[in-house]
């Protein structure tokens, strides 16, 4: 018995050493694959040059459009998403599963397909699209179009992340609050939301990051006004890679800020 376990241990050590090295190399290569291109991007253009190009009106316009539209989309997604997230967190059954599947659909759907789907509802030729154009508020080739595209792809992040945050709040605490004579609204405001807060903030941050990076559905729905991702595309096609750098760097900085929020005030859902 003792001999056998000894020989086993020796084998484990021998093989274990090799596999650990292989695993380290595999993981390390992947990590470099993430980091090296980022560093490379910042080294591609002299810092002074970047600052100069960032004051270019097209860059400023696209940044304004992106920040404005992503802010609106995030607020709308949060407003509409939290009640759904709470319902998903507090119910269970086939209906809940089906609803959750519908929520996750935009996450797995290719964004361009998402754009096409949206065009059938909001595009010119659709009843809603035509009515909106007649009312002087076109839903495509407008800021509204950008927002619609962003909400479609980004709001699931709010719903899914906030759902997990609500689930982490023990329902007994809500019963306790209500048994103390507090209404559902007071309970939500003073017990549920504060406790789920960091998780909800994570969802909001992820949704904002996704909205600001949205390209596929936006291209289909609203090529104008140009958002930063669209501006990158246009600059790259018309003027070459160098001209796409400034906006790309801006987007990297925004992504870094989102990560910072996730790892400080919000509760990182992937930790």
């Amino acid at each position, binding site marked *: 018995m003792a001999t056998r376990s000894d020989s086993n241990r020796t084998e484990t050590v021998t093989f274990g050493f090799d596999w650990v090295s292989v695993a380290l190399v595999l993981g390390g290569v992947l990590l470099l694959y993430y980091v090296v291109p980022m560093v490379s991007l910042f080294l591609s253009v002299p810092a002074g040059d970047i600052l100069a190009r960032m004051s270019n009106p097209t860059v400023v316009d696209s940044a304004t459009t992106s920040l404005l539209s992503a802010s609106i989309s995030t607020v709308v997604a949060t407003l509409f998403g939290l009640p759904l997230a709470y319902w998903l967190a507090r119910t269970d059954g086939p209906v809940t599963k089906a609803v959750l599947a519908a929520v996750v659909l935009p996450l797995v759907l290719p964004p361009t397909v998402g754009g096409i789907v949206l065009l059938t509802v909001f595009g010119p030729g659709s009843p809603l699209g035509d009515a909106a154009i007649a009312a002087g508020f076109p839903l495509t080739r407008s800021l509204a179009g950008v927002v619609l595209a962003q909400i479609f792809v980004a709001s699931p992040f709010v719903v899914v992340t906030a759902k997990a945050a609500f689930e982490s709040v023990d329902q*007994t605490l809500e019963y306790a609050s209500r048994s*103390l004579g507090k209404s559902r609204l007071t309970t939500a405001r*003073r017990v549920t939301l504060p406790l789920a807060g960091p998780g909800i903030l994570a969802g909001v941050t992820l949704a904002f990051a996704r909205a600001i990076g949205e390209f596929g559905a936006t291209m289909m729905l609203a090529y104008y006004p140009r958002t930063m991702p669209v501006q990158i595309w246009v600059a790259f096609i018309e003027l070459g890679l160098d001209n796409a750098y400034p906006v790309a760097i801006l987007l990297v900085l925004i992504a870094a800020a989102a990560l910072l929020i996730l790892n400080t005030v919000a509760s990182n859902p992937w930790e």
Partner: protein
Amino acid sequence: MGMTLALSRLCRSYGQFDFGPVDLTVDDEVLAVLGPSGSGKTTLLSLIAGITTPDSGSIRLDGRELAGVPLEDRRVGMVFQEGALFPHMTARENIEYAATASDRVDGLATLLELDGLLDRTPPTLSGGERQRVALARTLATDPDVLLLDEPLSSLDAPIRKRLRDELHSLFESLEIPVLYVTHDQRTATALGDRIAIVRDGGLEQVGAPSTVLTRPTSRFVARFTGTENLFDATVTNRTPDGATIQFGDVQLRTTASDVAPSAVTACIHPSRVDVEAPRVTDGDRTANTVSGTVTRWLNEGSEYRVTIELADGSLALTANVRPPTFERLGLENGSDVRVLIPEASIHLIPDAERGSRTH
């Protein structure tokens, strides 16, 4: 005050588990709800609190129907198993959150000895401290009914005992119906003005602790409240003031005479018999006398649990023996003893259920 909580034909079914129908009236008293886990104790509280809605039946508080009323409007206070304190608030904020008047907080803090704890957060409090804060928080709402779901179950024995003593006088001063759920018979008898025994979603027996302990209506209640000595017996003779029963070759007189059938279960609580030396003739002369041999004993601190094999060896009886008696008799395995069983210590259960519903 004078509140009365009345449940009538209350039912709730959960797939495999059916609760009710339950009929129960609770006045200004402490009703200890005692039963094994999964018997429906928490369901009973959830229905009264409004966390669970009944399938049918009514819950009336001083005539006001509660079934269908949202829990926030019921004025039913509930202390949850682990306290359910809001973790993002200090103890004081927890109580203030509930308080109907802000000046109540300090009074409750004094009453429940929370003065040094008010600025601490729930995770830094011990289990007993959390329960006291939770109780203060619930009392701060000035409820019409108080429900407690095993608030002492997670505590160490000494703290549990101390809190139990404190709670008893506190509950008396409230003058509202108090339902106290527990699976611990000692807590139930210490705290309850009455005890309700819950089994399989229904009420098995409701009565004063002494009645439930000494006059169980079923083998289940007898076992659950600590009467280990249950014998399948036959009534051989019946007189106006009692009966004679027989099991094995043991014949006993009992004052119990209110049982009609001849097949009965004889219940003898281990603390209601005396153990004496074999040939000494003092002690209660009216008591039944049975001779036996000690086969096992266990020191349980405040008393010894002694297993005695009765005369012909086919029956065993457990007796609780106080340490002085145990030491005076010099009991050990193999000691011959005389067991005195007072006639009033033998309780009879009609044996319709013998063999059935065994738990």
